[in-house]
């Protein structure tokens, strides 16, 4: 739990930078009086966050599951199918991210 929080904290600088730069670009566009461009920019940021965070969550979940699954399959190769199912379950996170991504881009 603590390890996961620590790992997630590593992504905070990138997320902060993305948010700040995104806001800066949006403000720049708004200053130019282009409200449509602002909305488009914010949508793009939202889509990026939806997909990116979904992928990060998937990665965080699949790391330990993959390690444990590799251990199980090393002892019992016949368990490969069952382990693959467990391994792919966190992919739903990035799929939800994709859904958000396409909704925002659509």
């Amino acid at each position, binding site marked *: 739990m603590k*390890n996961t929080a620590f790992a997630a904290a590593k992504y905070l600088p990138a997320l902060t930078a993305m948010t700040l730069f995104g806001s800066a670009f949006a403000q720049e566009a708004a200053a130019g009086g282009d409200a449509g461009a602002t909305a488009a920019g914010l949508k793009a940021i939202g889509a990026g966050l939806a997909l990116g965070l979904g992928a990060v969550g998937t990665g965080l979940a699949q790391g330990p599951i993959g390690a444990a699954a590799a251990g*199980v399959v090393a*002892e019992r190769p016949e368990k490969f199918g069952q382990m693959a199912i467990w391994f792919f379950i966190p992919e739903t996170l990035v799929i939800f991210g994709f859904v958000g991504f396409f909704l925002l881009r659509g």
Partner: protein
Amino acid sequence: MNNPYGYINGRVRMMRTALVEARALDEAASTVNYQEFLRQISETPLREDLGDATAQGAGLGQLDEALSRNYLRSVAHLRSIATGQPAREIEALLLRYDLQNVKTLVRGVLTGRPADDIVAGLIPAGTMPWPVLQGAAQSADVPSLAQTLSVAGGKIGQILRAAVAGGASSLLDLEVALDQGYYRAVLAGVRGTNVRRYFTREIDIRNLLIARQLRGSAPNARYFIPGGRDVTESDFLRIAGGDNSVGSPELQAIAEAADLGTAEAIARRTLDQASRNVAMADALGPGVALDYLRRKEQEIARMRLIGRAKYYGLSKEELAKELQGE
């Protein structure tokens, strides 16, 4: 994030599924004779190592060899899957078997038992090479045993050497000195909170058992093992003096047990429970390996006991009593 125990514990959990199930042990215990017992265990995961034990005319010697082979293979397999810090922690867990083996050697040498008898009581696990243990069993006295083990006996060998050099000569003195050194080494070797908590519980229980052993003689604080949590030095002296009250209700039953044998059986059950708890709580630590080693040790001990009972034709009731006290 990158915890190596995810992989290691995945493997150890799979190794745990290869242990003989309780149902199979019950079936082995209910067999009518030794041949039937051999046939029964041939259907368990132990079959790979049985070899000559099931041959016509084979006796308990072959069964013991087969069980030792299986045990040694399991421990070697466990050692082979860990590297780096986890490997060091697993080595620290294996010191327990070195401790038991050195105690067996000390008892055997002090009581003048033949080398073959001593070797038969050794556990083929731990970090000491088997030939070293076999050689040490030939020692004529404890100082020469300590000398032999100080060279190739690892940490526990060095602890024995220091105890002998410090003037320990009685069995209790030597055993407590070994315990004190072992717990110092193991607590220095394992980092996980859950596993450390298990060991502090084990130290408390060991202190209770030593205190009970000392009843009737003058209580002496030098037999106290530091590092526990619920049994302090003053509690130890109080219990050794005949008092039965302990701060922890879990430990109360050990202090109040009718005799030392019953206290040891309760202690074993308490530690079994503690080891199961640590395996559940320590999914990304050495607790799973600790629990596996404990279960494997019990599986082999029970199989030996059932094998002997069937070979000598013990009744089911007698065997059940032996298994309870095991």
